C-alpha cells in the first residue's frame, strides 16, 4: 500500500490545476486476506470503498467497477495499473503498476510544475489501521488446499432475504473444466463488512450439493467442525470429489448456518443457495499463499506479499507508453 500516499501527493498538487484523479475499485486481487472476500453486489463493493477510505485516508474519489468488472477488463486486468488521459479522452500513458513519481513527471510536462511539491509526510494519512473482527479468529485450522485449483464461477441464489453474510468461494481441478473427475474445494467465508460471526453454541454450518443427472459428488453433503470457542470468524472449508461424467450442468448448493451480529444484537439461522458452474472465474483473484492456483491475477513475479493497492513501492517505472514513461528524474 506504499504507492497510495505518493499518489495522494500528486493529487494534492495537481487537482487544483484542473487534473482529475480517480481510483477504480476493482475485484479483489487477493481474496481472503484480512477476511475480505469478493462482493456479491454493487452495494457491497461500495462498502469496500468505504473501508478502503477509512484504512487509507485517501482524498482521491473512487469509482466502483461494475459487477461485470467492465472497467477492469477494458483496462487490461492489472491489479495496480495507472492511466493518464488528455482532455480529449485519448490515452497519454499507461503503466501496469502505478508509479506516482513517473506520473508527476508526465503532469509536469503537460500541465506544468508546481511551486512546492507535497511530500507524503505533509499528508495526514493514517499510519496503520485497526482490523475489525466480530469474534475470535485462527481457532479453526485451514484446509490444506491441493495445488493447481482454479476459482470457478459461483452465482448466489436470488432467493436470499438476507445479505450473504457467509460467502462461498469455490475452486476446482482443471480436469473438471473439461468434464472429467477432480476435486472441488468449498470455502464459506464470513464477509467482514457485516460484522457477523459463527454461533458455535448451535448446530454448525451444513451444506448439500444437488447434482444434474449423471454427476457424482462425494460427499454430497457436509457439516462444519465443532468448535470449542463460542464464536469465531474463521472460514469453513471442505473438499469433495466430483465426477462430471461429461455432464454440462452446474451444481446447486444449499448452505445453512447460524450467524450473529453482536453490535446489532441478533442471531439467526440463514439458508442460502448457490449455483456452481464449471467455468473459470477470471475475476475471482487468488488468495495469497495459494499453491499453484492460477484463477486470478493477484501474483506478479512470485512476490507473495503485495497488498491489492499499489504496494509494489520498490518497482521501477513501467510505463507502456507515453513520451515520459520510464524516465528518471535527474
Amino acid at each position: 500500500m506504499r504507492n497510495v500516499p505518493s499518489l495522494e501527493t500528486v493529487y494534492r498538487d495537481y487537482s487544483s490545476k484542473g487534473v482529475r484523479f480517480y481510483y477504480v475499485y476493482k475485484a479483489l486481487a487477493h481474496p481472503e486476506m484480512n477476511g475480505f472476500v469478493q462482493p456479491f453486489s454493487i452495494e457491497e463493493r461500495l462498502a469496500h470503498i468505504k473501508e478502503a477510505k477509512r484504512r487509507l485516508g485517501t482524498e482521491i474519489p473512487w469509482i466502483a467497477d461494475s459487477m461485470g468488472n467492465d472497467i477492469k477488463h477494458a483496462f487490461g486486468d492489472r491489479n495496480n495499473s495507472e492511466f493518464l488521459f488528455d482532455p480529449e479522452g485519448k490515452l497519454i500513458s499507461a503503466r501496469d503498476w502505478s508509479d506516482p513519481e513517473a506520473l508527476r513527471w508526465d503532469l509536469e510536462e503537460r500541465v506544468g510544475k508546481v511551486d512546492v511539491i507535497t511530500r507524503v509526510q505533509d499528508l495526514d494519512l493514517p499510519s496503520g489501521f485497526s482490523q475489525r473482527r466480530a469474534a475470535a479468529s485462527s481457532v479453526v485450522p485451514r484446509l490444506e488446499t491441493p495445488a493447481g485449483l482454479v476459482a470457478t464461477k459461483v452465482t448466489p441464489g436470488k432467493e436470499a432475504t438476507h445479505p450473504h453474510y457467509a460467502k462461498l468461494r469455490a475452486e476446482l481441478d482443471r480436469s473438471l473444466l473439461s468434464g472429467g473427475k477432480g476435486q472441488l474445494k468449498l470455502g464459506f467465508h464470513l464477509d467482514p463488512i457485516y460484522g457477523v460471526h459463527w454461533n458455535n453454541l448451535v448446530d454448525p454450518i451444513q451444506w448439500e450439493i444437488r447434482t444434474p443427472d449423471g454427476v457424482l459428488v462425494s460427499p454430497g453433503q457436509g457439516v462444519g467442525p465443532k468448535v470449542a470457542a463460542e464464536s469465531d470468524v474463521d472460514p469453513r472449508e471442505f473438499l469433495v470429489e466430483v465426477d462430471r461424467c461429461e455432464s454440462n450442468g452446474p451444481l446447486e448448493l444449499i448452505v445453512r448456518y447460524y450467524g450473529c451480529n453482536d453490535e446489532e444484537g441478533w442471531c439467526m439461522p440463514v439458508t442460502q443457495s448457490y449455483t456452481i458452474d464449471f467455468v473459470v472465474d477470471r475475476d475471482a483473484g487468488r488468495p495469497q499463499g495459494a499453491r499453484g492456483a492460477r484463477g486470478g491475477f493477484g501474483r506478479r513475479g512470485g512476490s507473495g506479499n503485495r497488498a491489492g493497492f499499489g504496494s509494489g513501492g520498490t518497482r521501477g517505472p513501467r510505463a507502456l507508453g507515453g513520451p515520459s514513461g520510464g524516465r528518471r528524474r535527474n
Partner: protein
Amino acid sequence: MTVTARLFGLLAILASGVTLTAQGRAPMPSPGDPIPSVSGFSEDGSEFPLEHLKGHFTVIAFGCLT
C-alpha cells in the same frame, strides 16, 4: 538449431501468448486509444460512464482492499 526446431520454438512462444489471453488477461489500452466506453459507479451509487471524464486531464489508478 534446425529450422524445424526454431519453428517449434516460435510456435511455442505464440502458443503461450494465446494461453495467456485464454486465461482472461486482456491487453492494456495503448497511447492514443480513446477512453473505454464502460461505466462504473460513483461513491453515492450513481452510474458513472467513463466517457464523462473527457474535458480534463484525468488520472485513473486501480486498486482494492486486498
